[in-house]
């Protein structure tokens, strides 16, 4: 990666804040003791972990005892879903959505094979769920409602408290995958309906491979990882100390940065979006413009393919992502965009820019400078330039059957 990298892929992962690295380093060098040890050399590390726990709790408006450190967002989601089902073992129904991350989706798919019924709530063109559909799906047999807070691809934010209230009224447990929300928008779990909430460090300027699970006090928690008594028996395994310290520091920094960062990211994102929409024909925003993460924009450029756009941007050092089939490693475009019912013309040419507090005005200027040329060049190569092209329409219909 060269010095001029313009990193607009912060929903994939973020730059580790230098202050986080600095906080971590002593725990990789000097303080290498085991926090479970009976000597003070290890004990001081245990204290540092408690501080980190407290920092994470504060960011969420939670209590220290409600935070369990995990190895990542994926582990948090797996743990939460299993814990919820164990806590309500007589209930066999799960409600989730069609746009969840693979680590929720694939767990639900497996549970279906193990005797659970799963309802996958649909989303509309904006990626938003319908609360009436949720209410209709809820029964006394529903053990768990699990939804994301905000979508990683479009940034669409779900009406979390409304979902939670409905879930509560049927006695269901409510888990939220907040991996994309924590650090991007302020959260307060104090008076929330959320029982379980997942977060991941690498999305908020902490390292990869560290996360946390919020478990509401009083919840009958069953651990996923069995072994020693770490995390009060709720997550066995010797702690990833340095990363936990890093996550704590990142949470603390987020608390101070957040109000300003939200404003700055939103302003830059809006500028980027507005310029592209007005200066490039045949493109549109995918997602819910009203309820959306301030740092994310997902734009569909018609008649061209996303991977080709990404490679073109890459040449200028600009990092973004796409939900097109060719980038996914599978042959299908993103399940999120498909669930939204987007036409194929938009689907394959969708690009996500996701900003962070490190994103600058000059970087956005640079992207605006190069994007029109990139889109023009690829469109000049494409055989399509209008929705009316007969032969492709036929194929589209054929495939829809």
């Amino acid at each position: 990666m060269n010095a001029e990298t313009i990193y607009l892929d912060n929903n994939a992962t973020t730059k580790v804040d230098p202050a986080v690295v600095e906080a971590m380093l002593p725990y990789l060098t000097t303080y290498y003791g085991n926090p479970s040890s009976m000597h003070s050399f290890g004990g001081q590390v245990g204290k540092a972990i408690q501080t980190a726990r407290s920092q994470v709790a504060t960011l969420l408006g939670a209590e220290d005892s409600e935070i369990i450190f995990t190895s990542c967002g994926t582990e948090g989601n797996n743990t939460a879903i299993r814990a919820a089902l164990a806590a309500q073992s007589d209930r066999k129904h799960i409600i989730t959505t069609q746009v969840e991350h693979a680590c929720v989706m694939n767990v639900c798919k497996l549970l279906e094979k193990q005797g659970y019924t799963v309802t996958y709530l649909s989303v509309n063109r904006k990626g938003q769920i319908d609360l009436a559909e949720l209410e209709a799906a809820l029964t006394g047999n529903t053990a768990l409602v699990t939804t994301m807070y905000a979508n990683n691809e479009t940034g669409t934010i779900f009406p979390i408290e409304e979902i939670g209230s409905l879930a509560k009224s049927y006695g269901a447990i409510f888990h939220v995958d907040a991996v994309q929300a924590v650090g991007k928008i302020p959260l307060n779990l104090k008076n929330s309906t959320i029982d379980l909430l997942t977060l991941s460090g690498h999305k908020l300027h902490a390292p990869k491979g560290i996360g946390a699970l919020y478990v509401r006090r009083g919840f009958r928690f069953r651990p996923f990882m069995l072994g020693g008594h770490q995390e009060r028996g709720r997550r066995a395994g010797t702690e990833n100390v340095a990363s936990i310290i890093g996550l704590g520091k990142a949470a603390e920094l987020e608390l101070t940065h957040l109000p300003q960062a939200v404003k700055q990211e939103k302003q830059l994102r809006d500028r980027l979006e507005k310029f592209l929409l007005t200066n490039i024909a045949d493109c549109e925003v995918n997602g819910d413009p009203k309820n959306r993460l301030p740092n994310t924009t997902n734009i569909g450029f018609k008649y061209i393919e996303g991977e080709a756009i990404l490679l073109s941007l890459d040449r200028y050092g600009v990092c973004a992502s796409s939900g097109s089939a060719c980038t996914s490693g599978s042959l299908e475009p993103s399940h999120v965009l498909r669930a939204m019912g987007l036409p194929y013309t938009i689907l394959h040419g969708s690009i996500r820019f996701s900003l962070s507090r490190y994103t600058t005005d000059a970087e956005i200027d640079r992207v605006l400078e190069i994007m029109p040329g990139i889109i023009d060049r690829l469109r000049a190569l494409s055989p399509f330039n209008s929705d009316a092209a007969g032969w492709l329409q036929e194929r589209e219909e054929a495939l829809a059957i």
Partner: protein
Amino acid sequence: MWDYTEKVLDLFYNPKNQGAIEVTEENDIAVVFGEVGSIACGDALRLHLKINVPADQILDARFQTFGCTSAIASSSALTEMIKGLTLDEALNVTNKDIANYLGGLPEAKMHCSVMGQEALEAAIYKYRGIEVEHHDEDEGALLCTCFGVSDNRVRRIVIENNLTTVEEVTNYIKAGGSCGSCLAGIEDIIIGVQEDKAATTARVEAELNRIQQTSRGLTTVQKITKIQQVLDEVRPMLLADGGDVELFDIDGDLVKVILKGACSSCSGSTATLKDAIETRLRDRVLPTLIVEAV
């Protein structure tokens, strides 16, 4: 990120022959295009050809592609490869040739090269007035409904590219890459092709054996006569260099010869000479003969 070759990236960033070809009124010139894929599939190629009618030759080729980096590079590569070829020659271009031209493609992107080959075929068939839909090989039952792939097309791609796994088939023509309900069917085809191939190999081997048996059927006298004939042909050349060769004895497939004169003075040249005689004898008399200098 995909591991693209320099050539792929070069043809993506600086594509050659992009665009359409103007239809012209010129005598003896025809302009056609062939198209495959669709927006729904995520890639599509429209290949334009300018054809010299009397010569049945491609004068110019251009492309319009909707697709990823490797789809664009494959299209551009194809146009470069086929310019100047006769239509019959062009029909021999395979997707493998396209991939090779690009210095290789990631496995999961092989379908981009397949798209090129198919568009070329579509254009030529269209020009020749053959309906692609009625093209023998693509007739057959729809096997993969997600990507609209027939069983015959799967069979063809398996044979042409020596594919042995379902995964490879998906990489080449996408079939099986979505709902997966056709995976078992694809597997059956692969097994069928492998069985056919094994049967063919067995037949070919039997045939070869038969041929060998016939020539093995030479009597020793016939063998000696033939060997002597060949040696007599070689001798004048050796004599000119001051050497000579003489048949000493025959023991089964072993032909013992005496190499003389200038040739025997240096071991290197003796070895070369022995090899040359052996090649000639194997070619003309029996492929199993071994020459030994005594």
